[in-house]
C-alpha cells in the first residue's frame, strides 16, 4: 500500500474537475457566511460582507465556467512518459504523479519541527529536521548517507543561525548558542 501511495497516478482532467467541484462547495458555504455578516451602521458603507461576496461570486462564476469548459473540451491523447521528472511535471496533458507518503512526511516533519522549536531550541530542532529531510535523499549507502546528512544538518543550522540570529537579529529560540556575538 505505501509503495502504491508513493507512485499515485491521477488523471489530470478528473483531478481538476473534482478539485473545482470541492472548491465550489466550499465557496458556496463561505458565500452564505458572507451574507450573514452584520449590515453596516455607517451610512453609505456597503457592509463587511459586500466585498467578500464579490470575490466569492468571482470564484463561483469562474469555477463553474472552468468546469463547463473542461467538460466540453476533448480529452487529449495521453503523451508518452517524459524522461525527466521535471518535464513530466511541466506536461499539462499528462497524468499527475503524486508521492502522497512524501507529502505526508514533509507536513508531519514540519509540524513536529515547529512544535519542538521552542522546547529543543533552534540548534537541536533544526539539526534534527534537516537530518530527517536530507538522510532519505542521499543516494549512497546508509552509514555514509547518515554521516553526510549529520554534517549537512549541522552546517545548515550554523548558516541559519548566522543569517537569521546574528545577521538579521531575529529572536529565534536558542538553547546554547549566543543571541549576540560581541567582542567584549
Amino acid at each position, binding site marked *: 500500500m505505501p509503495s502504491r501511495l508513493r507512485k499515485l497516478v491521477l488523471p*489530470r482532467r478528473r*483531478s*481538476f474537475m473534482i*478539485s*473545482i467541484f470541492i472548491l465550489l462547495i466550499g*465557496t458556496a458555504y*463561505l458565500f452564505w457566511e*458572507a451574507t450573514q*455578516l452584520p449590515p453596516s451602521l*455607517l*451610512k*453609505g*458603507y*456597503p457592509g*463587511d*460582507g*459586500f*466585498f*467578500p461576496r464579490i*470575490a*466569492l461570486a*468571482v*470564484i463561483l462564476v*469562474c*469555477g463553474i465556467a*472552468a468546469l463547463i*469548459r473542461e467538460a466540453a473540451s*476533448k480529452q*487529449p*491523447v495521453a503523451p508518452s512518459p517524459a524522461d525527466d*521528472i*521535471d518535464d513530466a*511535471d511541466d506536461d*499539462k496533458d499528462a497524468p*499527475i504523479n503524486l*508521492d502522497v507518503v*512524501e*507529502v505526508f512526511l*514533509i507536513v508531519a516533519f*514540519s509540524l513536529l519541527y*515547529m*512544535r519542538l*522549536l521552542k522546547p529543543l531550541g533552534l540548534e537541536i530542532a*533544526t539539526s534534527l*529536521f*534537516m537530518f530527517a*529531510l*536530507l538522510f*532519505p*535523499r*542521499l*543516494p549512497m549507502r546508509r552509514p555514509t548517507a547518515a554521516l553526510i546528512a549529520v554534517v*549537512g544538518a549541522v552546517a545548515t543550522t550554523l548558516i*541559519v543561525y548566522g543569517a*537569521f540570529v546574528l545577521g*538579521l*537579529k*531575529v*529572536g*529565534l529560540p536558542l538553547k546554547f548558542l549566543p543571541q549576540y556575538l560581541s567582542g567584549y
Partner: protein
Amino acid sequence: MENIFTNIGPVLMDMGSLPVIIAIVAGVTLGIVLGALPGFGSSQSLALLFPLTFTMPADVAIIFFLAVYSAAEYGGSIPAILIRTPGTPAQAVTVLDGYAMAQKGFPNRALKISLISGVLGGLTSTIIFILVGGWIASIALEFGPGEMFALGIFGLSIIGSFFGRDPTRGFLAAGLGLFLSTIGTSDFGGMRFTFNQSFLADGIPLVVVIIAFLAGPEALRLLINHRKTIEKPKTVLQISTQKADDRFLKSDIRRLIPTWIRGSLIGTAIGALPGAGASIGSLIAYGEEKRWSRRPKSEFGTGVAEGIAAPETANNAVVAGTLVPSLALGIPGSGSAAILLSVLISKGVVPGPLLFGAEPRLITSMFIGLIFINLWLLLLGLIYTRGFAHISKVSRRILGPCVFIVILLGTYAYANYTAHVMMVIVLSLLAYWMVKIDIPVVPVVLAFVMGPIVESNLSRAMTIHSGDLSVVLTRPITLIILGLALATFVYSAISSMRSSLSSTNEMKE
C-alpha cells in the same frame, strides 16, 4: 518631478554608505546565485529572501530587493549559456544562441554579451521609468476613490486574463486571492471568516501569502519530485574549448546598438503591462530582432550575438518597466512587482499616485539605486560570472531541504508566531496542488496585494456617494477605465476560445 531631482544629491551620498553598498553587493550576489538555480525565477528568489528585509530600513530593503530582482533576471542566463539549462523561463530563448556560441568556443563572449546587454537594458528602462512613472502618477493624482477602484478592477482584469492556460483559471485564482485578503478584521472593525480562531483575527499576513504561493510550490516540488531521482551530471563548458579571441569585441558594440535599443524599449513596455513579465519580454524581443535584424533569419539559433543580446536586454529592462504601474498606480504587474510592493507596504509606505509626491526621496533612491545596481551588476558579473555556472549543478535533492528550512524559519521570523508557519504549510500545499492541476498561482498573490486597495477605495467611494454604486461607476473616467477592463476581459475570452478551437481542429486532423 522637481522633488525627485532635488533629492539626487543626498541620495548619491547614500549610495556610498556602507549599508547600501552591502545591500547592493549582497543583493546582486544572491540574485545571480538564485537566478542561476534551476526553477528559481526572480519572483521565487524574492519570495525566499523576503524575510531578510524585516529588519532593514525601507530604502535599504527596496534597494536590496531591486538588486536581487535585476541580478536574478541576469543570473539565469549563465547556466543557459554554459550548460544549456535556463535558470528561469525568461532565459529559454537565450539558450538558442547563447549555448550555440559557447559550443563554438566563445563562452566568455556569450556571457559578456549577455551581461552588458542586461546592464544596458536595465539602465535604459530606469531612465524611462523615472520619466514615465512621474508623468503617470501626476495624471493619477487627479483620481478619486471611484477611479482608483476602477483602476484596481482594470489591473485585476489584466491579471486574470493573461495568466494561465485560459482566463477562467486566471480569474478563479484572482478571486481566491481577493477572498484571502478579506479574512480577518475589516477596515471598519468587523470580523470576517475567522470562525472564532484567534490566529485569523489579524488576517493572513502578506508575507505568508507571498512565501506560500511563490516559493512554496517550488520547494515542495524539489522535496517531493527529487527524493530518489538519479540526476544526469551536467558539464560546464571547459576553458580548453575556448578560442583565442573569446572576448567581447569592439565591433560587437557597433553591431548591437540597434538591438539594445529595441530590446530596452520592448522590455520596458512589456514590463509595464501587468501580467506579461520577463519571459514574454525576452520572447518578443527575440522575435522582433529576427524580424528587424540585417542578419538572415536562418543564422539565428546558430550562435549570433543579436540572439543573445535581444532577450537579455529585454528581460532586464522589464525590471524598471514593472515599477511604472506598480509605483505610480499601485497595480503590480507580476509576482516580483507584488513582492516589491509588499516590502513597501510592510514598511508603512503606500504605493500609488501619492507616492511620488509623498516619498520623493524613496523614489529617487530607487531611480539612482537602479543605476548603481546595474553598474555593480556589471562589475560583479565581470569578476565572477563563470564561477556561478557551477551553482546550477547543485543537486536538487540537497536544494529542496535547504529552501524549505529557509521558508519555515523566514515565516517564523516575521512575528515569531507558529500559526504563520502553519498557514504557510497549508497554503503551500494548496499552491502545489494548484500548479499540478494547472491553475496559475501568481494571480492569487497579485489579487491579494490589490484586494485591500480595491476594497478600501470602493468603500470610500460608496460612503462619499451615500451608498449609490451607480454614481460611483458612471463617472466619466471610471466609466472609461471600467470599459477598458471589460474590453480586456472580452478580448482574452475571445482569444482563448479561438486557441481552444484551433487546438480542437488540430486534434481532429
